[in-house]
């Protein structure tokens, strides 16, 4: 029993959950609106896409390093299939397959340069992100377009609709939430119950040891980036369908908040550490901060300041912890 408590206290996720509870109580006391049903549902709706992106960021960080290309991969692939859907009569599931294929190709490009040449993943993904940006805006004149016919049903598919008795405000949960749940379940199964999942953690922790242990480091790494491209494309479609239109510009710069979220959730940027629960909680916390700042009377202008402080504090705490554990280990030796 004592051991369990100690383990929980040592978990980053525990502290994030604690912060969430404290913040929620604070907002509730201050505004009295936090635990209203509509606010909770709104919150879940708001974090769906970032939670999906968080998977990309986490896989990349755990196995290799930064991936900042997912928002533009999402933006470009979604924009392309929406244009196709508006002008042709291709059914929705083929369009989704096309988007996934585009995402996978972008992922292949990332993976190729990172695996074959051992380039810094931040720089490679920044380049692909730039290229996707150029394609979406230059070649395809990225303007705002509405959801085409094949996606109309998904766009207006709400799985839950609630109305708060106190305020009369209502909120609905979009079907994309289910997509997120399915992706998290798949990710959980792969990470915790397959050899590939073990390999992702192993190559991030210590590449040479992983290679000696018989993991195909290059194949796994390449695979991670291809999967990231695919998840990004799915996240992009969800985002566009939830907001009922697609403008590639809206995706631009979306990686920051996602990386901040997973860092808060305990994903270590040096690789090898990170959990899905942490990812989700981190995303939830940041979603809460940006959704609720106005509720407690803080101007929206302060949102980025908060975000910056959270990233810096989260990263500093993680860094201090890492240095300390290194010191303990060297003392033992």
């Amino acid at each position, binding site marked *: 029993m004592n051991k369990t408590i100690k383990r929980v206290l040592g978990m980053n996720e525990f502290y994030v959950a604690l912060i969430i509870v404290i913040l929620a109580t604070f907002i509730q006391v201050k505004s009295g609106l936090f635990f209203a049903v509509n606010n909770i549902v709104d919150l879940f709706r708001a974090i769906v896409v970032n939670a999906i992106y968080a998977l990309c960021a986490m896989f990349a960080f755990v196995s290799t390093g930064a991936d900042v290309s997912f928002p533009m991969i999402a933006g470009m692939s979604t924009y392309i299939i929406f244009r196709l859907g508006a002008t042709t009569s291709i059914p929705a599931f083929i369009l989704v397959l096309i988007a996934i294929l585009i995402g996978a190709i972008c992922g292949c490009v990332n993976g190729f340069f990172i695996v074959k*040449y051992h380039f810094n993943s931040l720089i490679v993904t920044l380049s*692909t*992100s730039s290229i996707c940006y*150029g394609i979406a805006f230059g070649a395809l004149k990225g303007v705002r377009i509405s959801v085409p016919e094949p996606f109309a049903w998904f766009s207006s598919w709400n799985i839950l609709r609630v109305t708060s008795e106190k305020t009369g405000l209502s909120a609905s949960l979009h079907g994309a939430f289910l997509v997120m749940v399915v992706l998290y379940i798949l990710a959980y199964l792969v990470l915790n119950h397959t050899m590939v999942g073990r390999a992702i953690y192993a190559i991030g922790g210590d590449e040479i040891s992983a290679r000696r242990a018989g993991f195909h480091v290059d194949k796994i790494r390449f695979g991670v980036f291809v999967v990231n491209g695919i998840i990004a494309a799915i996240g992009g479609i969800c985002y566009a369908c939830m907001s009922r239109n697609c403008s590639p510009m809206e995706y631009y710069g979306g990686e920051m908040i996602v990386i901040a979220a997973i860092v808060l959730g305990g994903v270590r940027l040096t690789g090898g550490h990170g959990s899905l629960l942490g990812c989700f909680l981190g995303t939830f916390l940041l979603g809460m901060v940006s959704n609720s700042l106005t509720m407690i009377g803080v101007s929206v202008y*302060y949102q*980025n300041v908060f975000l910056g402080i959270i*990233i810096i504090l989260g990263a*500093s705490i993680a860094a201090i912890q*890492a240095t300390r554990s290194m010191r303990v280990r060297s003392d033992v030796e």
Partner: protein
Amino acid sequence: MSKRTRLDSDFLRMLIILIALLIFAGVTRGSAFMSVLNFQTIGKQLTEYGLMALGLAMAMITGGIDLSTVYIANLCGALAALMMKSMAPQGQIGGILLACGVALIVGLICGGLNGFLVSVVKVPPMLATLGTYELFYGITIVLSNGKSITSIAAFKKFASTMVFKVPLPFIIFVVAAIILSIIVSATPFGRRLHLVGVNAKAAAFSGVNNVKVITMAYMTSGLLSAIAGLISLSRVASVKADFGSSYVMMTILIAVLGGCDPNGGWGEIPGVATAVIVLQVISAYLNTIPWINNYYRQALYGLLLLGFMTYKYYRVKGRRR
């Protein structure tokens, strides 16, 4: 010894590319390109991201990266613009100088914060500067209420001043590049900078004060960004929190083109400075082609970066054999 030749080759390669580009542009575009006015524009435009790229190069030599340069520049620009408005609405020289001084000090402090996070707290540089980037961006939004701040009329003259037909900003860039070149290649500090980048642990054991060296590198980057912010305030006559967000990509591209190794330890300033000019010449040349819009440029930079890194990979590999 081998290091010396390698560094020179980076600078030389960029110089050859620059000359080839100028000849190519001159032949294909003729007098429209080879005019004094065009070169003045080139000189004026490159200064802002050129200074930031020099700062990034300093960070990259120590094995880090500085993603916050653009937002340090915007923060300092916004601060200076606000101070000038309240203290020197008619363009009193004292107020302007004070505002500039404060902006430069703020730039140093911002850089110092980066350096502190990287060297003392040991946050990975990418993440530390990502966090401060968001923080500085946020502070600028708060300062400006999310709108753009216009510059006072008198300060606009600063960027449009010509010295013997050479724009003043370009002279500032050249002077900064020369000073930094000397610091990096001919002083003990420059040697320590490289040593920390190659192997921080070995540097610490051989008596280098890593914290001081890294902090100094990031502070230099902050200072250069602040200067860039002031120049951009003067040139564009206004400042906005998200101005120049595409410069982040450009500065990284320039530093890598100029011979910096993202993993640290390699890189000299002359190569980077020449790469700045090369990129601006390419950009100016693309401007003369009507069907190429700004967005293609972004894609081209991405391709260039990947292509150049691949090229260097094979060069280094070939030499090792």
